[in-house]
């Protein structure tokens, strides 16, 4: 049964990465996962927190999966060769967090470009969809199947349809907000950053 589904790749094996891996496994997806180093470094943690997820090197995760989640610090994704992602659908779940990424937010996003637009600009041969960034990992971990909304954004119809299905399969309610420029609402200081809401709550935050 698992074979018919997309294979999920997760780059980043920390709080968010492990949580996404667990959600995907619970929805019976096949999952590949990587930290920044040797996969052996994460086998123990994976075996407990996301059993059945396959620890691999980052490059292998990208190559062997259909849809790749970026679940690493925003200041780190450019350490990965953009070419490795060619042809893949990429889900950007990253946020600017000054305590991790440094004090200069302008480097990561500004009035003209959201951080996701910058990710898309870096990954020239891939399609980027933003999703799973606005909720704390502990809420993601414990609130699936509780009518919580995950807001997603992007422009490629096929990629959007895939991500929408993942949101549903992971036990959340999808809400489409627009293109990657619209993700300014999902960034720190934006009304949806940190939002853990049902559909009514999300619409209220957006004044809709």
């Amino acid at each position, binding site marked *: 049964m698992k074979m018919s589904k997309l294979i999920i790749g997760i780059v980043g094996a*920390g709080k968010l990465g492990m949580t996404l891996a667990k959600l995907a496994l619970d929805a019976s997806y096949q999952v590949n996962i990587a930290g920044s180093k040797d996969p052996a470094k994460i086998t123990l943690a994976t075996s407990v927190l996301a059993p059945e997820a396959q620890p691999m090197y980052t490059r292998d995760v990208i190559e062997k999966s259909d849809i790749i989640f970026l679940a690493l610090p925003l200041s780190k994704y450019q350490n990965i060769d953009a070419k490795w992602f060619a042809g893949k659908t990429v889900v950007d779940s990253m946020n600017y967090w000054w305590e991790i990424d440094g004090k200069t937010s302008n480097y990561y996003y500004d009035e003209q470009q959201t951080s996701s637009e910058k990710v898309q600009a870096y990954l020239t041969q891939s399609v980027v969809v933003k999703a799973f960034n606005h909720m704390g990992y502990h809420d993601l971990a414990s609130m699936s199947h509780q009518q919580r909304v995950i807001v997603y954004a992007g422009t490629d119809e096929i990629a959007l349809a895939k991500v929408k299905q993942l949101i549903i399969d992971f036990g959340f309610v999808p809400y489409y907000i627009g293109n990657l420029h619209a993700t300014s609402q999902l960034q720190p200081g934006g009304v949806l950053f940190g939002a853990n809401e049902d559909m009514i709550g999300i619409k209220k935050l957006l004044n809709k």
Partner: protein
Amino acid sequence: MKIDVDKLRFGLDTFGDVAYNDTFHTKMSYRESLQNIIKEGQLADQLGLDVIALGEHHREEYSISSPEVVLGALASTTKNIHLSTGVTVLSSDDPVRLYERFATIDGISDGRAEIILGRGSFTESFPLFGYDLKDYNDLFVEKVGLFNDLITGEHVDWESKHVQKLVNVRPYPRIEGHKLPVSIGVGGTPESVLRTAYYGYSLMLAIIAGEASRFAPYIELYKKAAEDYGTKVGAIGVHSHGIITEDDDDEAYNIGWEYIRNSMDRVGLDRGWPKMTKERYDFEVIKGAYYVGSVETVAKRIAQTISELGLDRFDLVYGTGGQLEKDRMRTIELYATKVIPRVKEILQEANENE
């Protein structure tokens, strides 16, 4: 889970939130706040609490940036209570000085010093002491290695990228008669759990949001890692915020809605988070990370957390967001004299019914 009630330890924690004056509802001066925390620590000792843990913060709303100095004051004016930091931001500290400071507290207090290492909630200490946040992880890895050598060895040699080179060093005074009890404060990073197990340290879970049960996989990971590394599983504890009233749930609820919320919103502002919603607060009070309510309510919730996770230790963070001095004192008093005995009673009953 069956709990060995007699071995349970209960702690009282604070970041040093500056309290509000009972009469005028104005914020205390730092001087008043520090003297107050000493009084609170002394009360905790008199009431028989097992340990007090003081955080290290360098922000306007807190008066404790040098927890060891405050612990030193407590060391000479308390008898039994163990004196801990919670947490010491190891990455921006000097392991040798840390050893010396803790050896000093341990000496003055006749062996009551303990330490919780970690990242803490904030990172303001990094620029303050000339460290680059980017090196956070490497700094921690190197310094915990050196610190461990210092507390386990006699003479220490050390060489690594971010830390001073040491040759045959033996810091003084010595920690005598026992090994300094070390915990690592963990917020949810799997790597920290593994590190705790690797060194055979105790695990202190900082649960500041969400249901306690979500931490069960981390405990499993800790135990499994200890088995893999061949280290001993240390004590497993939880640290969470709380406010206790005698029998009025609403009163405690309202204090929390004013002060805990305020404290969280302040942090949120820095990080671009939204303000806390009533729904979120209610969730945390009813089944999440806030132990807020009457003696009976809080006792039941603590007992549930202890038995769900199989804990050896529970630490209540008091005075979050400042609060009136009388409300802080009341929380400490009720926690020690009524909540803890009731928690033990509930757990004992559960044991007997198993």
